[in-house]
């Protein structure tokens, strides 16, 4: 029943894979169907964008003007104080510096995650060894341990080794892998047919080469997901930087944003403007990462 023919494994296999894009994504035929789908998509987009529109409306209001109104305003009508964005960037916090700091932490984390999780994920996905079941169970269990209880012990540990006040506690652990991504990558890699492995071993490749030259390139979609999520999660992460950093020069965007929240006399307009600004980098990353999301084994040009 298997109509997959293993391509001969050559050094340019990944390139050929990308070239031969067989229409994996289904092109809908009937007009009615397409209209219905578009309607659905538009409806969903409205569900998403209306609240964002509210944020924009709030962001464009001047100080001391009510932000919560009896009938919600989905789109700015009266106030167009674009300078609130400028104010956020310059007055309420040193936005540029915070962004640079955050970028440093985020990019390092993405690197660490991609390197470590792909290696470990491959190990769990396609290698046979004693204790694999136990170790994998341990991996899952570590995902269960709530950060709330590890927070203080980990903090004290990092303090004792003099990493307090630096970015090290925020970056180095990512090179030790993240259970979530290892799990994800393992699931994904297990969907790649073994015929590729077999053919490779016939050609004399060892495990590392199989990993590096065959499996990894085919795993671009899942690695993209990992990169995007790591970027996102670190961009928004508040507690780590809060605990381990102790001077304003090192602060990240998340801390700057959280600083705007006070329980009395909150500057809602600035807060919404700041939130809108902070969405932009992750969205840009995601938009460009989308191309990589499509790929995988299905795009390996195959003849039945």
């Amino acid at each position: 029943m298997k109509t997959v023919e293993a391509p001969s494994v050559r050094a340019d296999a990944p390139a050929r894979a990308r070239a031969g894009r067989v229409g994996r994504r289904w092109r809908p035929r009937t007009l009615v169907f397409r209209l219905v789908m578009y309607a659905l998509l538009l409806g969903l987009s409205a569900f998403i964008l209306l609240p964002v529109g509210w944020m924009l409306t709030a962001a464009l209001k001047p100080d001391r003007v009510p932000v919560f109104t009896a009938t919600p305003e989905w789109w700015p009508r009266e106030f167009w104080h674009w300078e609130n964005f400028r104010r956020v960037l310059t007055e309420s916090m040193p936005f540029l510096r915070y962004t640079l700091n955050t970028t440093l932490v985020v990019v390092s984390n993405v690197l660490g995650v991609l390197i470590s999780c792909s290696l470990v994920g491959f190990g769990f996905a396609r290698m046979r060894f004693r204790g694999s079941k136990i170790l994998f169970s341990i991996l899952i269990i570590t995902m269960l341990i709530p950060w709330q209880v590890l927070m203080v012990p980990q903090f004290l540990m990092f303090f004792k080794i003099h990493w307090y006040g630096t970015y090290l506690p925020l970056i180095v652990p990512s090179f030790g892998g993240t259970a979530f991504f290892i799990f994800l990558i393992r699931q994904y890699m297990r969907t790649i047919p073994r015929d590729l492995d077999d053919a490779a071993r016939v050609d004399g490749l060892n495990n590392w080469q199989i990993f590096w030259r065959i499996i990894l390139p085919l795993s671009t979609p899942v690695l993209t997901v990992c990169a995007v999520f790591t970027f996102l999660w670190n961009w928004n992460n508040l507690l780590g930087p809060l605990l381990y950093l102790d001077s304003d020069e090192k602060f990240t965007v998340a801390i700057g944003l959280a600083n705007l929240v006070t329980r009395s006399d909150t500057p809602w307009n600035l807060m919404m403007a700041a939130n809108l600004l902070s969405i932009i980098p992750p969205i840009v990353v995601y938009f460009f990462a989308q191309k990589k999301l499509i790929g995988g084994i299905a795009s390996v040009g195959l003849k039945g």
Partner: protein
Amino acid sequence: MITAKTSGRRSRLGRLARREERTAYLFLLPWLAGLLMFWIVPILWSVALSASDWDIISKPSWVGLGNYREMLFDDRHFWLAIRVTLKYILLSVPLYIVAGLVLSLLLNLKLRGMNLFRTILFVPSVLSGVAVAILWVALLNPDVGAVNSILRAVGIDNPPRWLGSPTWAVPSVVLIGLWGVGGGAIIYLSGLQNIGAQLYEAAALDGAGPWRRFRYVTLPMLTPTLLFVLLTSLIDAFQVFDTAFIVSGAQGAAGDSLRFYLLNVWYEGFRNGRLGYASAEAWVLVIAAALVILLIFRTSGRWVYYEYDPEKER
């Protein structure tokens, strides 16, 4: 692996297997090293803490199993938190799994502008938890929030009071999470990529319509991803914290109806200053969740299909 099938010379088989094992451990090295360096010590420390009374800033004092005893017999917040969290799990996990799957199928269609739609649906995941919570608390205001205004406009006279209603408080949090389900859909999307077109072609040739193609090709090939989403959604639901924390504030005007398990742990540990007790509660959660998760994981062999499963190569 030709050698796996043939009953070859035992020593050669052993040596190859051992070599693979060593290589495997090398691949696993980053994780093992990370565990040792950053996890073992804090975990052990945390377990020790669970048997002590500690206000973080003074010296801890040993209480043995006292924390566990108090939790089970003397603390209504503990049982309340279990009820609230259980309600949340039962509501959210099935909903998020199905919604994410449906959404990803939608997003996988080849329509024009799909890149844009995918980006839009990803936006909620990008917003920080604080922003999302603040936003939705405003939208869910019983009197003047947008949601109820819309409900009234379509003729529902007595719309729910959302966060202000003991029955609707947890569903409100589920709704807020549903707004962000587009982020999870991209995980399904990546899983959808590995389903070979030939399988669809073969099915179509056999006369299968779209539903049967979905049921007999897409779904089975998606089971690894489904398992992942099931387990991680469960784990997330056990650990729900952010939205509830922001809605009720650090000082905590959390009515009983929003007292999620980890929020309760947070209050006990960091507001009431009893981190030992909080750790004990957290470890109870870990054990309970571990049992559920491992059960699902062990029985997953029956319904999950892997193209490549090393353990089946014997």
